[in-house]
């Protein structure tokens, strides 16, 4: 049985090679199409520009190379610095919630991988995105430029202050939620504008909060993603 000294290492080597193997672009296209079908449309995302954007943006390019093969799985993935690239469905849901359209100007707080900015950029005229962690911001800016998202501007700064010179915005997407909503962001939201914030642990199916500004009045609405089945109810 000396053969085992040969076969076992070979099998292990093959297995590790398989783990780091990156699928060709065509495979990713299929995976993406499948993601749109099973994770986005099947769960009720019916905002056509959002669905189209999810189909167009190559999510795997925004995922760290080592995890690229899992880019189209139904879940968030770590991207370093304690941050994640959100679950595809959450990205789509947040996008649909702010109801973006051509001509809109959107502010994103927390660029992270740049994926949400790219999805928004497929739909609206201008996306301004702010990232506080310089390594993440720089790498996202580089990638978005490489992918020719010329309508996205990335700034490395404290998102607290928003981006006053480009405001007011039709929508604000806060991807890195904080325990308070910075007053400058509320100020930079257009009358009738919408702001969306995810709430919850980064690896949980997240709850979303939609903030709407109507004149002087600001209302919030908690929205559980449709994948949730409501909890025990009184029959």
């Amino acid at each position: 049985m000396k053969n085992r000294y040969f076969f076992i290492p070979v099998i292990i080597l093959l297995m590790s090679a398989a783990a780091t193997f990156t699928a060709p672009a065509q495979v990713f296209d299929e995976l993406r199409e499948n993601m749109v079908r099973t994770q986005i449309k099947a769960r009720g995302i019916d905002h056509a520009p959002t669905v189209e954007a999810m189909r167009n943006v190559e999510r795997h390019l925004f995922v760290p190379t080592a995890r690229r093969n899992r880019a189209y799985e139904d879940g968030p993935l770590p991207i370093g610095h304690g941050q994640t690239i959100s679950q595809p469905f959450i990205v789509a849901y947040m996008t649909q919630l702010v109801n973006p359209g051509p001509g809109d100007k959107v502010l994103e707080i927390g660029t992270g991988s740049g994926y949400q900015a790219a999805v928004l950029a497929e739909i609206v005229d201008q996306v301004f995105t702010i990232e506080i962690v310089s390594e993440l911001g720089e790498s996202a800016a580089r990638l978005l430029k490489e992918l020719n998202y010329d309508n996205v501007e990335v700034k490395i700064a404290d998102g607290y202050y928003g981006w006053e010179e480009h405001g007011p915005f039709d929508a604000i997407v806060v991807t890195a939620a904080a325990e308070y909503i910075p007053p400058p962001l509320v100020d930079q939201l257009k009358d009738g504008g919408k702001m969306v914030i995810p709430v919850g642990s980064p690896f949980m199916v997240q709850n979303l909060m939609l903030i709407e500004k109507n004149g002087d009045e600001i209302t919030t609405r908690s929205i559980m993603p449709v994948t949730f089945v409501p909890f025990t109810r009184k029959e």
Partner: protein
Amino acid sequence: MTKRLFFSIGLLSASIIAFQLILMHILSIMQWNHFAYMIISVALLGFGASGTLLALKSKWLVERIRVMLPLLMILCGLSMSSILAVSEWLFGTFDSYLIFVDTDQLYSLVLTYLAFFIPFFIGALAIGLIYVAYVKKIGSLYFADLFGSGIGGLASLLLFWTFFPSQLPAVIAVFPVIAGILLIPAEKKRVFTIISLASLVLPAILYFNPPELKLSEYKSISKALDLPDAQIVKERTSPYGHIQVVSSGALRYAPGLSMRFKGEVPVRDVIYSNGDWFGPVVSWSREDTTHFLDYTTNALPFVINKPEKVMVADAGTGLFVAHSIVRGASSVAAVEQNRVAVDLLKNELAADIDSLFSHDAVRLEKLQSRSYLLSDTSSYDLIILPTIETFGGTSGIHALNEQYLLTREAFKDMWERLTDRGMIAITTWMDYPARNTLKVLGTLMSTLHEADVDDPGRHLIAVRGWGTVTFVLKKTPVTEEQIEKVREFSSSKFFDPLFLPGIKKEERARYNMLQDDNFFELADRIFSGPEEAEKLYSEYDFNIRPSTDNRPYFSQFLKWSRLSHLAEMFGTGSVPFIEVGYLVVGITFVQITVAAIVLIILPLFFMGWRGGYRAFTVLHFSGLGLGFMFVEIVLIQRFVLYFGSPIYAAAAVLSAMLICSGAGSYFSSRIEGTHRDIVKMTGIVIIFILLYGIFLTPVLLSTITLPFLLKILFSIALIAPLAFFMGMPFPLGLRTLSVHNNTLVPWAWGINGCLSVISTALALIIAVEAGFFWVMVMAALAYGITLLANYAKR
């Protein structure tokens, strides 16, 4: 030789216990404190597996004992100093948050687990070898072993005050090496002296160049340190935790702030303890007339009344203390157990908070809040509790922390401390699915029902913002004027009343809408009365039944029976994050049980054994392995409340238990040690355990007001008799076994180790599921097994 042997075994045991506590401390800094259970089990697994090796190779090892003992002790020291650095270097640092999403992390965790096993295994092998070789002197040796462990527990506290966490393994590693040097055989003196001196070089290098402790990137402090210009401006090390103050131009704090707030949320430094959020250093001045908390739901009690005498439980950095003073309180009792953080705020950071903790109106109490409540006789107009959970949740990492401040009994104590105009205020973050909010509500309602108030609904007010809910429990019914004030406050801040006498349905979600009415329906069921609440507690997918002193796990919500249902609803990938702490203990339990069986029990079946006494060995030593740890864990938990500090409780109980058990073991060498003797001793232990199970809590509560020193003496007096008798059955059993079938001695050592491993995790699971009382009952049953084993052989 004998004296040196006793000293060596004591020194080695002291270092092993201290090293175990050091690893627990380091892992709670790098990851989270639920890994403490992993370390306890790794240590005990090391002991169990060493028994297996001894059983398989005892002849070979005993023949070479003069060389093996010093060698093993020196190797144990070397591995202690280097294992952290080596495991980080070889396997990288695992991140517990990623274990469920990244399989590489799992391998890294398992390899780290195995690496940590090494020093314990080597150390335990040395101790076990001594037992096997000198079994006739087991009583005195076991005494030295336990006494050393007791001292090690106390010494580690001293080390935590003196050295930085990353230096601690190198410091403690010196002691096993010294223990080894003491046993160097005369004929090998030269070789061993060189080896010993060389082996001190590594700890020295690692002391002066300690390995960097790589923190999980999901720890609060890691995220803060990623902010621009972030830096650690102050650092203190202590048994209370590794305290770090982080400063950055982007650290702000304004939890659940109303969207009516138009000012600037100021930048402030933040204090972290073991890398976890402790509190913000909130700039405050005695001249302030407003406070940003006025724009949060936390302001609710001050809207209802103007409280003069306030108690702030778990005061942290003093945020609520400052708010109370700004809102006109004339006397504030700030209760906080973390002395190091409080001293930092009182002295070096005093200028930042305008000497808040030295303010004439502030009385600082450095105790756990519940212990303070039990020992204090003052009355308060307002008791403010700490905010429950954090924004976005902590994924249940605190699930297994005993929270004696949030039990039904604690609320009853608070209710009794209230003046006629008194209130209890508690704020929780909204969580999805609702757990904290419902459990708080259930606890408050049960307080009102127990107090037998006429119309409970008129004693509770709650206001909900976009992220938080503040509940206020009032001693007297809410007046119409107060109701009006609450309505005004809510609409002026874009908040919504949740509970208010006479509330209309549409008022509840005017500014902050929920997707549907489910949350309101659930809350109303709890509010409507005990019967409906009880039905909901049984039906709901999470455990939201109010916690009690017997099961003080407020943040534990997971029901094992609903796990598959939750997986169906949230997806299997998300489930671990609903309650990672308890799930880790569950997984640890299964994994330890399997590992213990594979590493400890199975090999012993292959070795074969001669003679009888096999059933006796299994029963006698399993009973002891289970029973001893069950009792120890319950005592630690009970004394946490008594001393108001988990660290001192653990140190006091561990040391008193081990030293007194050691004394019992020493005494056991003076009695004949027949099965009849063991039956008697075990019987006494069982009676003691049952008495302690019933009377310990009331006895502790009735003496909690004693001065600290008297409490220590009293607790030693309480623990001593039980521990003394618990120290006897193990050495007596080993001695009996050595007479009847010597080959089974190492096996007995292994079985005892194996069951001790399993019992640590099992005790916790029983405590969570059934309460501490039942852990004591199980301990009595475990000793009952030992008793029966001896009764059959008498």
